[in-house]
């Protein structure tokens, strides 16, 4: 069998193109009004169906949170700090409070450390489920939009029981946490987690092992290990490229040093590996919640901490659902910090988006792009 030659008219067109003005490309603007963009814009340069160049245009949700923190006292800033990653609010809250505690020299009681981890892990599951539902709808899989959002409510109810708010908990405060475990929380939580673990098996059947999904995600949007390290990717994006890095293990904070859990990693670096890692992380988080509820020691949940930011600098970081989130704080003795700077995981993972998209098909754009779990509100701050 011989390869058919290119038809003459097309070849003529191609030669005229190169002769006149070089290869012609089409620039497409995706977002912010687009079902596959969220609150940001991607400027994509296309040659036919192939993406030649992709540039993210963030800043649609820039609200100047760092500046707002300078004019409010540290307690009033807690809800503001939570808003950027509203589906993963307690992890940002935790990082912020850890920076304050470092400056104040206050250490939270052991029981509150466990409670912080409990809420962090619940938030991780909630965030991953939200991501999964949007991933489902991007791929046209409506069942995968409905199921995770329905199961997310299981954990939202639990968090509401514990903290009083659905998604913006403001639970972690300097010196501890706001509330103790309510009565009957552990039983309810274990019941719900048992149900959720069964659901994850069903997720495997309908989505993760489904050829409709695997054929669209495997080998799409590959981020090689060396590149992931070079651009400073973090979280599941980094672990999907075969780097075993998780702050909960590498630099244990709160109660994580006393808990036993695994860090899922994959070598492929494609969209599928990043997706499956999040599913495995949800299982690990379930394990962690069960351990916390079993091991949690009795004792006080809050130590008195002054509403003062002492003179000095502090740096803290935690592993949020999307990766490393770090706070840098400078105090000058008042009740307001002199400067707050924070870098979120989405901001760091934004550099990965052009690498993932380049050379791929336009039709694969939503898969590759959303597999990073880029939450624009968090990146813009």
């Amino acid at each position, binding site marked *: 069998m011989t390869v058919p030659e290119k038809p003459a008219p097309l070849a003529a067109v191609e030669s005229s193109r190169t002769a006149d003005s070089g290869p012609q490309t089409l620039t497409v603007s995706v977002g912010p009004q687009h079902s596959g963009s*969220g*609150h940001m814009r991607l400027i994509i340069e296309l040659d036919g169906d192939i993406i030649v160049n992709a540039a993210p245009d963030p800043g649609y*949700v820039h*609200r*100047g949170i760092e500046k707002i923190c300078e004019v409010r006292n540290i307690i009033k800033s807690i809800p*503001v700090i939570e808003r950027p990653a509203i589906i993963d609010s307690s992890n940002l809250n935790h990082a912020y409070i850890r920076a304050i505690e470092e400056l104040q020299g206050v250490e939270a009681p052991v029981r509150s450390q466990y409670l912080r981890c409990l809420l962090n892990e619940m938030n991780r599951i909630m965030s991953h489920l939200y991501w999964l539902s949007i991933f489902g709808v991007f791929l046209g899989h409506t069942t995968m*939009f409905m199921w995770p*959002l*329905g199961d997310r409510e299981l954990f939202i109810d639990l968090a509401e029981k514990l903290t009083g708010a659905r998604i913006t908990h403001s639970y972690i405060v300097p010196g501890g946490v706001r509330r103790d475990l309510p009565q009957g929380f552990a039983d309810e939580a274990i019941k719900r987690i048992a149900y959720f673990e069964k659901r994850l098996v069903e997720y495997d059947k309908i989505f993760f092992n489904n050829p409709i999904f695997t054929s669209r995600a495997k080998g799409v949007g590959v981020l090689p290990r060396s590149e992931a390290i070079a651009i400073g990717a973090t979280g599941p994006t980094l672990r999907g490229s075969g780097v075993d890095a998780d702050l909960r293990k590498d630099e244990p904070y709160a109660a994580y040093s006393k808990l036993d859990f695994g860090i899922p990693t994959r070598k492929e670096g494609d969209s599928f590996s990043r997706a499956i890692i999040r599913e495995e992380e949800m299982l690990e988080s379930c394990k962690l919640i069960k351990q916390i509820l079993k091991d949690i020691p009795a004792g006080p949940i809050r130590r008195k901490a002054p509403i003062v930011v002492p003179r000095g600098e502090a740096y803290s970081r935690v592993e949020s659902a999307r990766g490393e989130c770090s706070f840098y704080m400078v105090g000058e003795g008042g009740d307001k910090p002199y400067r707050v700077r924070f870098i979120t995981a989405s901001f760091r993972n934004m550099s990965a988006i052009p690498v993932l998209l380049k050379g791929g098909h336009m039709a694969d754009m939503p898969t590759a792009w959303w597999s990073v779990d880029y939450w624009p509100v968090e990146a813009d701050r």
Partner: protein
Amino acid sequence: MSAQKTAQDQDDVLAMLADSINVWVGKLSEIVQRIVDVGPIRSVVNWGRIYSLWPVNITTACCSAEFGAASGARHDLERFGVLPLGSLRQSDLLVAEGTITKKMAKRLRMIYDQMAIPRYVIAMGDCAISGGLFHDSYSIVNGAHEFIPVDVYVPGCPPRPEALEQAIIMLQEKIRHSKVYERG
């Protein structure tokens, strides 16, 4: 010479005829509008509008998380006819989900202008009402009403999905009592 003149006359006559036709068509449409707004056609048209409120795919800030939860399995906005699919030209509803930054405000106005009439706006969250938590920020607009007309406000930071559902029901009630040709 005379042939030219007659041609000009003919043009004048045609223009006059077109004008009078326009006037008559205008009057006719006025009559039709009046009939529609009085008769049972109005309730049928409004019934159609009430149960096909398709929102635009635009998210302005973090309230989108609760909008997502409201579209999901437990709350399921689709039972009210709110289906977050479809293009801008086919949508009726614009939900300003949270803080509107100055950069986003321009796009939001552009989107509102491109939507086909009838179009409705829900301002979701404290930030879309008055700036909320970020009222003193340098980069936000204090409320959606500053650049688009708002039908229903939903307070909360973020509002619970139930609050959004109530807003949808209130908007439906508003549409039920509105005239077909009222909105321009």
